[in-house]
């Protein structure tokens, strides 16, 4: 079947052209917060076969493509960070490095001290596409970056995800060069204007960089890097490859992206956009964040019992999902948390089915991708940094041995991050804090 089976109509757009020799590898990070309910999440291996848990049950059809990894800890927090909790989990989840409080008057405002895996990989597998990476959010409250940012360009360089699918659409498809682009004189002129202005901006940045103290130079360097990336995107179009169908998604009627009840609709749009970005080879690295760390969304679409929060003093700041997570020992809240995490599984299943429906080479886009579902915590109620739930879907071109559960009790999650580097063809012995990489990649995960 083709992408026509998707929920959205598509506008016909781009012609297919020559295929690259072998399909590229890609990685998608799929984030949900507040930990999980471990016993309802943990699948079993029965007679060598994966037997899914209640939370993972929506992935039943895709279970041969799953690698479930249990037991990993954010050891870098447990051993080296002076702060634990949602923000610390967020800071370290994809960086594998300790964090730093950047505003002493706001002790929750901590930031990661290293590049996140998505950005690290983007610098290695994403340099030829229009966007090196794309970061999509579903109602990620942006005010405190410690909670909002999963991705980091480098030490203390958080990247806020884009909460608007309309803006994501623009970043991916606006003024797209190549087949289908308007071939008018004015389009050429405005492209030339932009290039000329950015060239001037680059010169200014270079000149100023030289005059600044070392500590501030990084800011001009980051700005310059962003300008170069925009220049690159202006002239880099889509590449539908062989057999993939690359079409601009139709976003339908505008929705209020900050209305709580819009969450399912926003999720669908962001997932459709990421799937199409991969199909069009506009990027090879994507993140989809369902909220920030400690998200407080209310899952009203799952039943009316979600309309009110558990009885919890409002002083705990906790609302919605976050409040439920802090009530994990209460059976009613626990049941709701299972429902919420099961809903995330349905969202992941939608993304995976979508990628599996885009043919590529001998298989599908999913076969050449690793989709990684991660969380900032293991358990929400106690801010547990142990036993964090990880699910990898897709074999990254046959690298992963899927269809199994692996357990690494107490091992640092850096080892999984390192394994993903190798899966993407990046040979390195460490990722993040090298102290937690000594045992190497997760050997059982590899075919």
């Amino acid at each position, binding site marked *: 079947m083709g992408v026509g089976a998707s929920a959205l109509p598509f506008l016909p757009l781009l012609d297919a052209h020559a295929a690259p020799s072998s399909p590229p590898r890609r990685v998608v990070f799929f984030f949900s917060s507040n930990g999980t309910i471990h016993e309802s999440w943990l699948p079993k291996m029965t007679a060598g076969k994966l037997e899914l848990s209640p939370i993972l049950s929506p992935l039943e059809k895709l279970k041969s493509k799953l690698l479930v990894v249990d037991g990993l800890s954010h050891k870098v927090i447990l051993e080296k960070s002076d*702060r*634990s*909790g949602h923000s610390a989990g967020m800071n370290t989840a994809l960086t594998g490095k300790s964090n730093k409080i*950047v505003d*002493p*008057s*706001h*002790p929750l405002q901590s*930031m990661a001290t290293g590049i996140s895996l998505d950005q690290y990989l983007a610098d290695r597998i994403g340099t030829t596409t229009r966007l090196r990476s794309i*970061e999509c959010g579903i109602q990620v*409250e*942006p*005010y405190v*970056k410690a909670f909002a940012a999963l991705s980091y*360009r480098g030490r*203390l*360089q*958080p*990247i806020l995800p*884009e909460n608007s699918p309309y803006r994501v659409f623009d*970043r991916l498809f606006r003024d797209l060069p190549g087949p289908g682009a308007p071939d008018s004189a004015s389009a050429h*002129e405005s492209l030339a*204007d932009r290039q*000329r*202005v*950015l060239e*001037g*901006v680059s*010169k*200014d940045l270079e*000149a*100023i960089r*030289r*005059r*600044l*103290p*070392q500590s501030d130079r*990084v*800011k*001009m*360097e*980051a*700005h310059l*890097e*962003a*300008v170069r*990336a*925009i220049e690159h995107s202006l002239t880099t179009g889509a590449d539908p490859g062989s057999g993939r169908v690359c079409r601009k998604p139709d976003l339908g009627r505008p929705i209020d992206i900050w209305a709580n009840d819009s969450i399912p609709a926003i999720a669908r749009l962001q997932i459709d956009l990421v799937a199409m970005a991969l199909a069009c080879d506009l990027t090879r690295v994507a993140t989809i964040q369902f909220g920030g760390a400690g998200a407080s969304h209310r899952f009203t679409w799952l039943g009316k019992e979600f309309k009110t*929060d558990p*009885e*919890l*003093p*409002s*002083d*705990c*700041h906790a609302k919605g999902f976050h409040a439920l997570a*802090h009530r994990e020992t209460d059976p009613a809240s626990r049941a709701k948390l299972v429902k919420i995490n099961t809903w995330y599984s349905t969202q992941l299943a939608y993304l995976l089915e979508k990628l599996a429906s885009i043919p590529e080479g001998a298989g599908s886009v999913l076969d050449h991708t690793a989709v990684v579902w991660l969380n900032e915590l293991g358990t929400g*109620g*106690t*801010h547990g940094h142990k036993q964090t739930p990880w699910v990898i879907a897709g074999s990254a071109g046959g690298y992963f041995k899927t269809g199994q559960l692996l357990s690494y009790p107490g091992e640092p999650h850096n080892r999984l991050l390192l394994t993903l580097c190798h899966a993407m063809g990046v040979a390195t012995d460490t990722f993040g804090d090298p102290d937690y990489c000594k045992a190497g990649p997760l050997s059982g995960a590899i075919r």
Partner: protein
Amino acid sequence: MAGCAAARPPHPHLASGTPQRHAAPPAVAIATEVVVAPAPLRRLTNEEYNNTVRDLLGDTSRPADAFPPDEAVAGFENNTISPITQALVERYMDAAEALAARAVGRLDTLAPCPTAPADPACARKFIEGFGRRAYRRPLDEGERAELLAIYADKAKRAGHARAVQLVLTAILQSPSFLYRLEPAGEGAKTRPLTGYEVATRLAYFIWASTPDQPLLDAAAAGRLSTPLDLEKAARRLLQDPRAVDGIRSFHRQWLDLRVLAIASKTPVLYPGFTPELEAAMVEETLRFAAHAVLAGGDTVAALLTSNQSFVNAPLAKLYGVSAPPGEGFALVDLPPRERAGLLTQASVMTVLAGAEETSPILRGKFVREKLLCETIQPPPASVDIRPPAFDPKQTKKERFARHRSDPTCSYCHDSMDPTGFGFEHYDAVGAWRTVDGAFAVDAGGMISGTDDANGPFDGAVELAARLSASKQVRRCIATQWFRAALGRAERAEDTAPLDAVYQTFAGKGFDVRELIVAIARSDPFRHAGVDPGSAP
């Protein structure tokens, strides 16, 4: 320094062990070698960007409202930590293109040249003049040449107007426009800021906007170098209507009012909490603050104890007073036994509450952090932060009893909860109440651990009077303005200048305008400091 033993104890927000300097003699007295803490590199905040393009181009479209929110440090927005991201650079590009396209519609005022053919001499005049306003300093030769080249090339193909538009697009994306640059000089020593750098600090401090032509002219003429120069310039800026923007901006940030925009209240309990009411709450407080500051006299007393405020019809209903005539806001008397200044205003009480109920913890924390300049640490990792079960048969104080009885909790919570309980007469949207559920409101509170405001009190009106009389509070307000002015938290090097600023503030009867002038005159405001080892 043992000699400091007689001085007041160090503020809790200063690192322990920080030597307390002797208080500097007030007023001028410039030491032979000035050492100030370095100011961070700031990028324009969204509010500053909006005000700046308004003042440069007459464009009131507020393009920065579409940018991601600003990053705050020490409570004030400055964008000093994270470097820019690609997504934001793209937004700057979009905004610059749109602003330039609109501005070129007013070409006759912007760059009055014959519209065709291209006129390089006239373009040069525009680039130098507008460039100086936008970069807040004269362009250097390289910058001038680059912009002229952009102009000339575009003018050849598309004429004068399009070329001016493209030059504008470039200027509005330049780092010299977007950042407040104060590059270090030779060597790793504190240096006096240039006149242009001082002009920039002063304008963004007092107006939350870009310097005007006279301020840049004063910079060019070397009339922004002495404390007296700064005093004169600051007094002129305070006379300008734009000072209202600056005063409002300070209070919006100090009081965390941006939280209101994302606050939600349970509709069943607070059906009146509409976006209109929420906007009115913010407007009330900002009008009130600007009025208090510009009225002169003891601003601190006015801010903390006045029972007058600005209300419109929906707010009048919330406060239980009769609505002012007409649509707008008017200064009215509020019930004096219920209301006293900022602490009891609907905006602040709404920010410091949950969706359903009040938050004594947040309210107590607010007093500690915003009025006493302390920092409350989050619970340590080892603490089980799962709250106790909710029991409707318990009063609020009973429900939080563990914060009193368990020493792990009380270590911090004793400084917050007992003070916060004093605000129990104000519900989660700041309306006055005498009952909470099944119980009569108990607003008996206690404040402890302060220099000079300790003791029990009954209700926030009494607390506000106590805080207003506290030297620690008054000094903290001076510190907050200092943080806003410098874009950073105060450091050990700031102790003497801050003491001097406070002495002036006190000596002038706590008129905040005099505080602003005193900060503008201070060494940290007029100098660029250098961190050891970070010189180029």
